């Protein structure tokens, strides 16, 4: 019985080999190839030149993840304290934007952040610029918001915040309150309860949330393209550029993708080790 049912996985194992393993091997193969088909390490030796892109990507993605965590954790705790009906509606409202394509959500920010965008028009209408200019003797017409690293981080936070809230909330809402009460009864103050009980128990959700925000953030190319004005090149843009963009070189693109993949896997492995290998199966 046991063995017969295990054969059910057979077709999928073949499928995985074809469409997961071989494609990854293709990337490896391309990364070690040159344009004329020979073996080369050039693609990797050249990666040093792109160090700033790696640093910028990891920096912005880290920032976005941190902000998501700083917003997502407290709001999950706050939500878990509300009534059932409130929680249901609030969760619906948090998930709703996820059903709209992220490009649309990003595009919305373009019209808000532009130099002649809504926010700047609003500031101008309430006389903010006149006020600043009269106090400081400057000549400001607008705040520069779009095409800055800040705008890219904002875009990431906006798009990926629900990915942080959902797993954390789903862990916190299931927390056994008796544990917290027990800790209280044993004389722990709120801070200690949080540090010794709530936080450790919600860690799987937090780790899951971090993964779900960090990975798409570090590899995005659309957000940085739309909100960064082509000046905030991230790893995603670098890769896209070599495949479908303005500087065709899939060999270099593959090498960058491979290195990015490895670095991300290492980051995640380290983080999960830190979370004591909790199986993190909290999706949605």
């Amino acid at each position, binding site marked *: 019985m046991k063995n017969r049912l295990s054969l059910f996985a057979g077709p999928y194992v073949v499928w995985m080999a074809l469409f997961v393993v071989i494609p990854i091997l293709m990337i490896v193969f391309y990364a070690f190839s040159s344009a004329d088909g020979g073996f080369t390490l050039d693609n990797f030796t050249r990666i040093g030149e792109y160090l700033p892109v790696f640093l910028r990507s990891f920096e912005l993605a880290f920032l976005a993840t941190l902000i998501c965590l700083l917003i997502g954790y407290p709001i999950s705790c706050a939500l878990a304290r509300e009534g059932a009906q409130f929680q249901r509606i609030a969760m619906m409202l948090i998930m709703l934007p996820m059903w709209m394509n992220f490009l649309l959500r990003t595009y919305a920010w373009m019209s808000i952040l532009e130099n002649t965008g809504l926010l700047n028009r609003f500031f101008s209408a309430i006389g903010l610029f006149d006020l600043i200019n009269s106090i400081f003797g400057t000549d400001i017409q607008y705040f520069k918001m779009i*095409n800055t690293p800040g705008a890219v981080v904002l875009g990431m936070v906006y798009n990926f915040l629900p990915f942080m809230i959902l797993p954390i909330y789903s862990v916190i809402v299931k927390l056994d309150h008796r544990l917290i009460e027990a800790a209280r009864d044993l004389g722990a103050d709120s801070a200690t309860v949080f540090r010794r009980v709530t936080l450790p128990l919600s860690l799987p959700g937090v780790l899951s949330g971090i993964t779900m925000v960090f990975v798409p953030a570090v590899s995005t190319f659309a957000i940085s393209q739309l909100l960064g004005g082509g000046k905030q090149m991230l790893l995603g843009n670098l890769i896209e*550029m070599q495949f479908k*963009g*303005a*500087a065709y070189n899939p060999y270099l693109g593959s090498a960058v993708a491979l290195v990015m993949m490895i670095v991300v896997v290492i980051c995640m492995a380290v983080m999960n080790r830190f979370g004591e290998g909790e199986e993190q199966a909290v999706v949605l």
Partner: protein
Amino acid sequence: MKKTVSLTVALALSAGLLAGCSGTASNPGSGSEDRVVNVCSWGEYIDESLISEFEEQTGIKVNYQTVPSNEELYSILSLGGANYDVIVPSDYMISQLIEEDMLAELNYDNIPNFDLIADRFKNLSYDPENKYTVPYAWGTLGIIYNSSMVDEEITSWDAMFDTKYADQVLMINNSRDALGIALMDLGYSVNTDSEEELQAAYERLAKAKEDGVYQAFVMDEIFDKMESGEAAISTYYAGDYLSMLQNNPDLKYVVPEEGSNWFVDAMCVLKDAENKDEAEEWINFMCSTEASLRNMDYIWYASPNEEALEQYPAYYEENYGEPLDQELYEIMAAPQEVLDRCEAYLVRPVETRTLYNDLWTQLSI
């Protein structure tokens, strides 16, 4: 229970779609009844009513796609798996594609309207025997600026690098044009292979980028940004300037004193195109005088069709009840003395192309 509801919805949807799918899943192979042609062009580069007219006239379905730049088109073609039939690259890219044996020789018997193309647009250097191409449009590259945001009259490429205009300048987002602008500003030829000259051009761009001159690197996003006054100065093509002018009369166009680039974009058919006959029919349709006139009126790029080029001012007057400003006509169809100041891009050898790619990637970092 909510899950049952959603499941029903999903299943109902998929059942309907599966049924519909078999109808539309036209395999692009031969033998199928539906004739199609896959066209790839630039954005804002056709009067879309021409597409539906062609479809009605011939029964051929046009799959019309766009890419932003020659370089991106080249990437998509090289990577493989794209099934375009007709593409509309610029001169230097055409040479490169011919060199790499990616284009099909055309059967000009199927394109009788090719005779309408002015002689000066035939047998150009990118296709000396004119075996592969039919010109689509031509024009110049120049500086577009908003006179309500810039106090002086701009005459030089220097404006594209001037810190005075920090955060007000849009740089064009493709390697050939961007490095070309820097080369011209430095007084070099746009067709140089000299590593030092290209390096110097790169430095010029990198310095300006470092100094915050560039608000963004854009291609067709430029329309919105220039029309709404989001940016003051940019470089783009003459036809697109005229199109922006309709929405913002403060915009000015200048072919800088250092000279500029003039280009021809031509229709070609890819070597492994599956719909070559349909492709040639499309090409023939697009270079008829009637289509050229309408297209010119819509995209504001000059047509290489001699009749259309001559008749356009009259066509304009008839349609809009006022004469066409001669100045605008000369921006669209640059007179010979302007073209004499301009240089066409020629295809560069592989080493230079690699250098272009490398410098461009570096600049983007």
